[in-house]
Each structure stands twice: as structure tokens, then as C-alpha cells.
């Protein structure tokens, strides 16, 4: 089942269209990266999913049901612009948030205690948020997002402003939540995060979805059939099916080459060909990084 499916979602403002016929499909129990440059419409889409604003057109289904007010309780949302009530105590604050999500006092208390235990911050219960350090407040903020055991967790730029220690802590928690069956949507432009964590991605640029699929599919789609080869001595191909794009010496007589297949030939044929002309020490396919794909697509669009 899909955790989330958006079909033809459109949102227009007086002077611009924030989302234009956007489709995305988020399979259950995956980590889904929602990518795109600033102002592409990611936050608008996320706000529509959270029912903070309404779409002008299109349909959104959550776990097979049309989006409805009760869905607020199954979503955990960490907005990019986030904060806590400074004057409230940590415990009071978390209970308040949990109750707004629909939990009763008793359940809220029990679930919050589990999380405070986990992060070893039980004694913060009576501390006011304004007395916490920034890193401490970030932990509380994260707890407030996930304490009600949401089936869908939406994190908008989750690591911005988090120190590396907390970022790692949260990464670990996200992976564990996924293992427990939650679906996670990341909105980010930090490509390392996407590379490390995401199973699926979608790219939104200029209000439109221009790419969607599993990370593997996307990379396969954008790979350029180039390979990196370490070898002894220099060489060149006689067969026009293969081409040496770049060749540079490394040390002693070792060289590093970038080789491209110009035909339907597979990597095995390339290896065979290579062994004829040189002594191969290492051979690896050059797969584009998400960052490269992102830049290619976004730049390509803006050049049109």
C-alpha cells in the first residue's frame, strides 16, 4: 500500500503557481526524499499534506483514504520554521502537543516518558525551554514530532540547525522508526542525506515534479555508461564502440582512465577489450551522485 499518493495537486496564488499538477507516490515503510531548489514548492506540498492549506485542484490519499481532518493524528511533522514555547516547561509542552495530536493525558504522559528515557533527558521535565541549550531544544522538538507514533513522518530540512551529534542521533532514530514500520518523507537539499538514507526520491522544480522513482532507478536512468579504470601503462581503443574520455598518470607507471561505452555493449565486453590493451588493476562503474543528477536537471531546466 502507498503511504501517500498525490495526484494532480495544484496550488495557485495571485501572482504565481506554487504547485502545478504534481504527482507523487510514497510507498509505505520507505524513506522518501522530496528534493528541489528553494522556492520550488516543496513546503507548499508539505503544508497541503498537513492540511495547513488546501490545494486548489488534485487529490491526496493517505494510506488509501482521502485526506481528512482525522489524518492529522497519524502524521508527525517537523517544519522547517520550527520552535517551542519558550516559557513552557518541557513536560507541559510535550503533553500539550501530544494532546493537540489527539492523545489523551494518560497516553501522552506514558509515551513522552519513553522518549525522554531513550534520550536520557528525564530530568528535563520541569525545565523551561528557554533554559535549554539549542541542542537540547532540538531533541525536545524531535520528540514532539514522533511521540504520538505517527505512521507518516514528514521532516522539512530536519538537519538544518542541528549539530552533528544530534543529527546523527536523529538519523539513527529515523532508521529505527522506519524499521518499526513508519514511512518518512524528507524534504531537503542536502544531497548526502539523500544518498545515505532515501529509498525513493522525487524532484520538484519550478512547481512541477520532474523526476520520481527509487534511488536505483533514477541513478540507472541518469548513468552515462562511463567507467573508471586503474591500469598500468597507457592505451587507446581501436574499436569505436569504446572511447577513452580522460587518461592521467597517477604514480610510477599507473594511470587512471575514464572510459565510455558508445554502443549497446555491456561492462563485460569492455573488460575483455581492456584486458587486451592494458593491465587492469581496478574497474568500477561511474554512477552519478544524487547531487550531480540534481544539478543537471535543475540547471537544464533553467537554461530552457
Amino acid at each position: 500500500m502507498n503511504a501517500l499518493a498525490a495526484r494532480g495537486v495544484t496550488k495557485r496564488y495571485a501572482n504565481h503557481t506554487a504547485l502545478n499538477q504534481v504527482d507523487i507516490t510514497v510507498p509505505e515503510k520507505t524513506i522518501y526524499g522530496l528534493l528541489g531548489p528553494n522556492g520550488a514548492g516543496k513546503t507548499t506540498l508539505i503544508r497541503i499534506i498537513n492540511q495547513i492549506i488546501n490545494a486548489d485542484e488534485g487529490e491526496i490519499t493517505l494510506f488509501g483514504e482521502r485526506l481528512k481532518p482525522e489524518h492529522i493524528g497519524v502524521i508527525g511533522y517537523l517544519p522547517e520554521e520550527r520552535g517551542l514555547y519558550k516559557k513552557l516547561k518541557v513536560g507541559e509542552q510535550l503533553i500539550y502537543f501530544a494532546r493537540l495530536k489527539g492523545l489523551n493525558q494518560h497516553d501522552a504522559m506514558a509515551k513522552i516518558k519513553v522518549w525522554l528515557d531513550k534520550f536520557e533527558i528525564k530530568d528535563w521535565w520541569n525545565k523551561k525551554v528557554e533554559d535549554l541549550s539549542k541542542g537540547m531544544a532540538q531533541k525536545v522538538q524531535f520528540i514532539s514530532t514522533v511521540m504520538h507514533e505517527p505512521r507518516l513522518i514528514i521532516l522539512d530540512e530536519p538537519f538544518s540547525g542541528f549539530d552533528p551529534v544530534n543529527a546523527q542521533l536523529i538519523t539513527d532514530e529515523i532508521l529505527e522508526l522506519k524499521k518499526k514500520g513508519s514511512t518518512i518523507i524528507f524534504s531537503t537539499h542536502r544531497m548526502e542525506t539523500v544518498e545515505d538514507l532515501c529509498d525513493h526520491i522525487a524532484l520538484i522544480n519550478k512547481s512541477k515534479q520532474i523526476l520520481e522513482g527509487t534511488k536505483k532507478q533514477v541513478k540507472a536512468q541518469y548513468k552515462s555508461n562511463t567507467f573508471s579504470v586503474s591500469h598500468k601503462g597507457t592505451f587507446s581503443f581501436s574499436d569505436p564502440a569504446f572511447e577513452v574520455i580522460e587518461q592521467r598518470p597517477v604514480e610510477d607507471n599507473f594511470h587512471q582512465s575514464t572510459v565510455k561505452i558508445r554502443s549497446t555493449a555491456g561492462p563485460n565486453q569492455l573488460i575483455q577489450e581492456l584486458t587486451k590493451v592494458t593491465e587492469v588493476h581496478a574497474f568500477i562503474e561511474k554512477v552519478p551522485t544524487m547531487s550531480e543528477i540534481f544539478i543537471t536537471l535543475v540547471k537544464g531546466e533553467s537554461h530552457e
Partner: protein
Amino acid sequence: MNKIWLIVQREFLNRVQKKSFLVATILLPLIFPALMAVLVYVAVEQKKNAKKEVILYIDESSYFKPDTAKFLFSPFTGSLEEGKKAFEASENFGLLYIPTFELAAPQGIKLFTKINPSPNDISDLEKVIANQVRDLKMIELHVDPEVLNKLKTVVNIESVKLSEGGQEKSSDSKVLFGVGMAGGILMYMFIFIYGAQIMQGIIEEKMSKVVEVIVSSVRPFQLMMGKIVGLASVGLLQFLIWIVLISTLSTVVLGFFGLQSPSQDMMQMNEQAQQVAAQGGTLALLNTLSQIPWTYVIVCFIFYFIGGYLLYGALFAAVGSAVDSPAEAQQFMFPITIPMLISYFGLFTFILEDPHGTISVWLSVIPLTSPIAMMGRIGFGVPDWQLALSMILLAGGFVLTTWFAARIYRVGILMHGTKVSYKVLAKWFLQKG
């Protein structure tokens, strides 16, 4: 609905648990009567011990007979120039120069002073002289001085309000004036203080960026209403505590002064009859106070407080949602403060002067001004239909402003760092959800 209730509770507890609330709620009713008591005491003492100012006078007309009710007069014989010199060297309040004049047209009377005299001082002096001139004219017309004395009468009109059942109620319009003024000012303060707190709360939520976290759990409208209603209940609680404290205190204080004030008056008045009259005055005051239908006034106050507060509270909320800092809020306060100021000045210039005049009636019916204006009128008795119309319009008014504010609020709270103008607000207002 359940979520609004949660927000109301949260906002209520947040404020009530603060020390400042406790201090304001308990100390204010103590401070005000205490301040008033001190002022009254000082005023009474001052009156008792006040030395009358001395005025030198040069009377060339020989008509002037010093009247010592307000000033002490000391005659000076000599020319005006000499008089001026003597006056400058003295500590006296003024130098009154009365040249010879025709009784028919007294002219050329001058008062020299070192500081500008108050209009009251001048008119008092004018009255003294005018009275004497009138008496002189009477004598010239051969009116017996005996008759003249008999002509002087002091009239005190006791106003009595006939209510529909034919019951007589004595109503002292000065007391009603005081009640109206106090009610109007209290309303003005309440709306401003609590309205500003809504605005401040919303700006804080925006500044601490907690607002988007909250609106992912509740509708923006629920958050706004929860905040408005939560603060309203704090205001009501505070008001009710004040009523209880003030009525307890004033019973004690009035009881004390009720016995005390006639004996103080006695020092200044030696005539038996006046003492009785003074006691009657105090009794009349207590009588009027006790005949004001307090329950009716308080119930009306609570209704207009809730209505007026919700009406303005929604506007304050809209302003708070549109800006990023309290300083920025200033530019949008204009549409809120103008009707408030109109009602405030209307209270003094029209309503308390003429509670049943056309302007007063309109001010107390139009929703933006009615909360303050009606409080000014309520003690004087308002026809039922006017009260009903005013209440219905107020209820309609707050539904309208709440709807209006909610449309701006839902967009405004999610905006950061936008330069907001009235044009931008209009755009937000028209924007689809």
C-alpha cells in the same frame, strides 16, 4: 471543538499561573481605593488648612465691598502706580484696580497678577463685583435691602426618576456620571490590555516559530479562537475577582466614611441646619448608590466586555498574525485605535453630558463604539429596544470581524520576513484557503 478547548485551557493556565496576574488581580483593587482615600484625605486637609490668597485692591469707585468667601481683600490707598510697586514687593496673589465707573456700564476694572490666574479665579471675582453692582442698582431703584435679602434663595433640585411601575427612585446625576465614566474607562482599559495581549501572544508564537508546529495539529481558526477565548476568560476571572474585592472593600470603606464625613463637615459649618443637610447629602449619595441596579449594570458590563473584547480581539489577532515583531504592529494599530478613541472621547463629550442624545444613542448602538458608549449610558437607564439592538449588532459585529480576521490570520501566521502593507493584507484576505 475539543482542540479549541485544549488551547483555551493552555492559554488560561499560562496567564493565570503568572505572578504578574496574581499581583495585578489582588493589588489593583487595593491600590485604587487606597489611592483615592489618600487623595480625598489630602484634598480635605488642604481645604481645611488652605490659607486664602490675599488680593490688594484700589477702589476709586468706593462701590466695592470685600467678600471673603474665596479671597482675602486688603485695601490699598494710593495711586495705581504706587499700588503696583507695593504689590510687586508683597507676596500677595493679585492687585485689583477698580476705577470710578458708571453703574450702567462698569469698565476699566483690572486684575494684576504675577502668575496667570485661572479662569475660575477671574469668574469668581467677576461674580462678586457683578453681584455688588446689581445690589447697588437695586438700591438706586429704591428696593428695600430687606426685600433684597429675601430675594436670595438657594435652590437644590432633587431629581427623581419615575420608573414604569410608578416607583420613585431618587437619582443623583453626578453619581450616575461617575458610574458611567468608571464603566466606560474600565471597558476601554480591559479591551486594550487584553486585546494587546492576544496580539503579543500571536507575535510570540510567530517569533518562536512554534506556530507551524501547532497548525499542523489544529486549524488556524481553532488556534486563533482558542487564544481569544482563553484570554477572555482570564479577563473575566480578573474582573469577577475585582468585583468581589472592591465590593467588600467599599462596604468597609463607605461604612467608615459614612460615619466620618459629616463630623468633618461640621468643623466648617456651624449651623445646625447645614449639618442636617450635609448628613442628608451623604445619605442621598449612599441612597443613590444602593439604588443603582448593580446586578443589571454588571451583567451588561460582562456582556459588553465579552462582545467588545471578541470584536476587537479578532482585529488584534489579525494584526499580530501579519507582523514579525511588536514594533511592526504599530503601523496597523490605526484602524483599531481610532474607533476606540472615538468611543472614549464620545464618552466624555456626548454620552456623559447627554446620555439620551442622538449621538449618544448612535454611539451606543454601533458595534465598534457600543461597548464603551453603552457603559457610559447604562446607569442612566437605556430603553430596552436600544439595548437589544445594540447587543444584537455587537454579536453580529464580532462574527464579522472574526471572519475577517481569520482570513488574514491563516495566511499571516505562516509568513516570515514579508513586508506587509494594507495592500498585502487585502491580498491575503482574498486568497483561497
